[in-house]
């Protein structure tokens, strides 16, 4: 114990006597450990969040988009931009073609609206969602109070709305919103229901929205030349999913009048394929973090070895004294390795500290439930330990193999 304290004290002495070099070396350990831990924890937390969403959506749902939802590495923008819109007409024909025993819903949205109730108003950041009665069966939104949209609401283009929790908090702080009138772009809507709060996903609140009948939305909040409907199809079970996807592709191609040699001018994505795309994104992030961390640690390792070599040289005489009074080789080796490990552990701990700090901050900003796993703290500490061990071995052996007579003569 006392020997350990002595070693730690000497590690600090080494740092003190080589301030600048030690600073940069510790910095690279901090960066390395930080990058590795942060990448690890971030990926863990994104994965948990995304997986949670997918589990909630159900794996039997698929989407038809005009353009892909996530594009990694740019993608062919020109190709996507030329694709025709999925408008009300396309959606209606698609729905007819798929028949009534398959759950199909259309959804269009537009962000940045102000919602008012009497004198209270939201910020101009509310998302309007236009959809139909099937939406509540295919999405993971649930009605809390009141009722959902009905077929009649859509057919008769009724002035009704279902509002999310963020909107309720802003404009109905004390009242029950059901039956009240809200105004969007000066159009009045009667609130028929409220949504169950869902919290944030990757920094985006999922409760800052108003759901309107699709027909209302398309008429008043989108013009025909840019209304872009996402079609959501829910298969009754996993077995019929691929069959339904084939059928959906066929229907869309007929509607779009595509020749057999032409490729699809729409995207089909399942929840699983979305998750996979996300997975490859987080995978990329984690490799990037891990790799850059590793490079930083490699540099740190070289730096630490250097510091320790200089320390050994500076303390040649002391090593000579220790040997002269009977220190065995293995004592000197372990002493210098411990000293190196102390050095790297200091850097590692600071790195972990910043990792936790940044992780917490990101958690607050991005609203991901940041999972700072003990696992990654332990991994980071182990990395620091191994780093100390590896970079300490050579200087330690050099110290231990000093000839006592030579060492005592060293000026």
């Amino acid at each position, binding site marked *: 114990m006392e020997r350990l304290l002595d070693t730690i004290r000497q590690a600090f002495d080494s740092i003190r006597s080589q301030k600048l070099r030690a600073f940069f070396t510790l910095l690279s350990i901090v960066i390395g450990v930080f990058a590795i831990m942060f990448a690890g924890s971030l990926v863990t937390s994104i994965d948990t969040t995304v997986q949670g969403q997918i589990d909630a959506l159900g794996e039997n749902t698929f989407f038809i988009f005009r353009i892909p939802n996530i594009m990694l590495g740019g993608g062919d923008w020109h190709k996507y931009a030329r694709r025709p819109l999925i408008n009300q007409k396309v959606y209606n024909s698609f729905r007819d073609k798929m028949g009534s025993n398959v759950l199909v819903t259309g959804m269009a949205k537009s962000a940045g609206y102000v919602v008012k109730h009497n004198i209270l108003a939201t910020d101009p950041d509310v998302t309007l969602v236009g959809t139909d009665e099937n939406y509540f069966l295919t999405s993971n939104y649930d009605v809390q109070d009141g009722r959902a949209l009905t077929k009649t609401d859509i057919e008769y283009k009724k002035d009704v709305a279902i509002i999310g929790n963020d909107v309720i908090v802003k404009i109905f702080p004390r009242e029950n919103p059901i039956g009240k009138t809200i105004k969007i772009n000066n159009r009045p809507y009667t609130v028929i229901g409220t949504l169950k709060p869902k919290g944030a996903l990757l920094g985006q609140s999922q409760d800052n929205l108003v759901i309107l009948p699709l027909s209302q939305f398309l008429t008043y909040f989108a013009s025909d030349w840019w209304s872009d409907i996402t079609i959501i199809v829910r298969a009754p079970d996993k077995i019929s999913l691929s069959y339904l996807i084939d059928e959906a592709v066929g229907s869309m191609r007929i509607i779009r009048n595509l020749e057999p040699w032409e490729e699809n001018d729409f995207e089909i994505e399942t929840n699983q394929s979305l998750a996979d795309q996300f997975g490859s994104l987080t995978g990329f992030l984690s490799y990037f973090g891990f790799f850059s961390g590793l490079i930083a640690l490699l540099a740190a390792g070289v730096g630490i070895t250097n510091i320790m070599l200089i320390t050994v040289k500076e303390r040649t005489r002391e090593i000579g004294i220790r040997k002269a*009074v*009977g220190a*065995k080789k293995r004592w000197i080796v372990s002493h210098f390795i411990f000293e190196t490990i102390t050095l790297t552990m200091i850097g590692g701990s600071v790195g972990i500290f910043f990792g936790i700090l940044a992780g917490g901050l990101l958690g607050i900003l991005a609203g991901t439930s940041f999972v700072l796993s003990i696992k990654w703290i332990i991994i980071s500490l182990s990395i620091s330990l191994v780093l100390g061990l590896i970079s300490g071995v050579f200087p330690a052996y050099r110290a231990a193999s000093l000839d006592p007579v030579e060492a005592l003569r060293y000026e």
Partner: protein
Amino acid sequence: MDNNALIKIDKITKVYNMGMTEVYALREITMDVKRNEYLAIMGPSGSGKTTLMSILGCLDSPTSGQYFLENEEVGSMNDNQLAEIRNKRVGFVFQTFNLMPRANCIKNVELPLIYAGVPQEERIERAIKALESVGLGDRMHHKPPELSGGQRQRVAIARALINNPSLIFADEPTGNLDTKTGEEIMHLFYELWKNGNTIILVTHEEDIARHARRIIKLRDGLIIDDYINQNPIYA
């Protein structure tokens, strides 16, 4: 030769290889030292005194020749065994003190006990006793830079004594001290010798050598004289 000799060396040679030339620091030196002898090794600068002492103290190994310490052959020992000898059976006092500047007196003196595996409480207790025995009872928490040369050499002597070694080597222990302080240090050695220790003293000063009971003179790595001092100081 006496089989009960504490030290017995036979044709010890030490050669330093300096590239093209070879420097013979010691040439086939043969001698014995008995228990409780007080021996001074004398000779001009470069005659091989320090080299001989380093070999006798198991700090260095000879190029050729045999060395028996208490009838054990040192040449066949490994690093750990040599460290053990330096730790338990030998105490060194150097001309330049060789103390650790950032550690206080107690820490300096207890160092050999750390490597001997003595528990901390006992170490401190013994270090305090050793410091008191060299007259430094009131300087125990001072660090070497805060001490005078004579005081530093006392700390070094306390460290050399701490593990009750049978052999004490002192290489020019008064070389960096004024005459009066040197005399005080020599008195300490005298008392150690009186108490039964074996002392081997390296010096090139006649005045210092006169404290010893036996004097060996070296020149160019050879023993040129080996005699009993008929009228030592402090009889």
